[in-house]
């Protein structure tokens, strides 16, 4: 995936106006030209009014990488305000199920109740949140449509068949490590039929929750409810979701020989390539996407005037990593739906207000 402007060795310089409109400039002492300025009326000669057809023509999404839990894709032709809204919603407003109430019947381990409850809350629970409702605030018990019941019951005992004079806990004790895999699902009501084939429980079975010694035990019942990341970070469905703007490196002159070598070292590997042109080694920008924009080149006095660093303002490289509850692409779809429902909510409020 190469951007159009970095394939040419020396791109034709952008006109000043285009640069202000489309690029964020990375200078030596700061980043300039950050804010969106293309509102109608700001640039004479440009028609910047909102046009859905023009937006649809310019807008593009390219999926770069996708597996179980990780998705990398490009969103091109959209403004930062909306891309950021998607990012914020992915982090904080896509609902998931997580352990909320922990009923401790017996805890004789050295992990205090509240610490254990905190750790349990952070364990991701593999249950599709779209199949559940939010719990009513007044409801203490929880019904089958808004609660998942889980149980953790572990007792540590001495291993009768341990070799004498061994000092390895793995040999001396049984059940001395409590993992998230020990959490069992207790179906309520009709959940056993509705979720017959879905394995409801923690996403990962190898999260260490507590350590025990012989005689200590845990007997805990947990209730999971639906919530959003805004309320508590345990409800956040993403390990993280972030975006960066596509970097753009423009070489203002031909850079040859030893300077080219030094230039190559200033950028991340793979960004600049040395090519052999007429027997001379010449630097060329091959893949600016890989650059991490450290602006190292601006620290060298002889190189800093030969290069222009910037970012393409409307090209967002999104990276979404899911905790495993929902696949990453489903999370992006849900996030967009959340923004749509926010708008609809206020539209109906406006209509109701107009009625009065």
């Amino acid at each position, binding site marked *: 995936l190469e951007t159009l402007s970095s394939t040419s060795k020396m791109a034709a310089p952008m006109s000043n106006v285009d640069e202000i409109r489309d690029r964020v400039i990375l200078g030596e002492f700061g980043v300039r030209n950050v804010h969106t300025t293309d509102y109608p009326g700001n640039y004479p000669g440009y028609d910047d009014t909102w046009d859905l057809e023009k937006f649809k023509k310019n807008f593009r999404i390219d999926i770069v990488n*996708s597996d179980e839990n990780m998705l990398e894709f490009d969103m091109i032709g959209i403004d930062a305000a909306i891309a*950021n809204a998607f990012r914020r919603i992915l982090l904080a407003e896509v609902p998931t199920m997580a352990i909320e109430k922990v009923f401790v019947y017996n805890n004789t381990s050295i992990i205090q109740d509240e610490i254990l409850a905190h750790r349990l809350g952070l364990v991701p629970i593999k249950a599709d949140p779209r199949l559940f409702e939010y719990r009513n605030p007044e409801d203490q018990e929880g019904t089958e449509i808004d609660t998942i019941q889980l149980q953790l019951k572990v007792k540590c005992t001495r291993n009768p068949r341990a070799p004498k004079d061994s000092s390895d806990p793995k040999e001396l004790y049984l059940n001395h490590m409590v993992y998230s895999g020990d959490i069992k699902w207790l179906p309520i009501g009709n959940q056993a039929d509705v979720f017959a084939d879905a394995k409801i429980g923690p996403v990962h079975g190898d999260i260490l929750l507590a350590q025990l010694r012989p005689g200590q035990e845990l007997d805990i019942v947990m209730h999971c409810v639906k919530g959003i990341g805004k309320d508590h970070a345990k409800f956040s469905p993403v390990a993280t979701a972030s975006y960066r703007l596509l970097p753009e490196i423009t070489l203002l002159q031909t850079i040859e020989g030893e300077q080219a070598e030094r230039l190559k070292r200033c950028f991340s590997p793979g960004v600049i390539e040395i090519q052999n042109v007429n027997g001379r080694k010449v630097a060329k920008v091959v893949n600016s996407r890989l650059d991490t924009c450290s602006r190292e080149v601006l620290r060298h006095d002889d190189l800093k005037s030969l290069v222009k660093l910037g970012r393409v303002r409307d090209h967002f490289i999104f990276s979404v990593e899911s905790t495993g509850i929902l696949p990453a692409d489903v999370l992006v779809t849900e996030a967009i739906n959340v923004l749509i429902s926010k708008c609809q909510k206020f*539209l109906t409020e406006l209509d109701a207000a107009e009625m009065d």
Partner: protein
Amino acid sequence: MTHMICGQQHIHAASTGHVERAIDANMVRTDGADEGCVTFVLHEEDHTLGNSLRYMIMKSLSRVVCFYSQDVEFCGYSITHPSESKINFRIQTRDGVAASEPLRSGLNNLTEVCKHVLHTFEARMQAFRDKEEPMS
């Protein structure tokens, strides 16, 4: 907070008298008799909707097709206090246009953008998965 003033700088002086109507999630404060200068209080919202809605309203089409003349003279939002989950969303319009009109069109435009992004994303994910199938 970010204020984007489109076109000429023209700040309305606040007139006397406030009219407060309390509506469920929405509280409207109008300056005197001018329906064009309104501060909407949006509850349970933050930069997520505030910034994107501000952008859509500022990009809005003008009904008056005239150089330098836009419906919306001022559009901005601010978070009153970080502990309170609400934003003050202010719209000032020109020529007596009711402020709820650019708000409504901004919300509609934002919905259209989201729907298009959704369709494009789903189509591209499907194409990506179809491309991966024969390889796996």
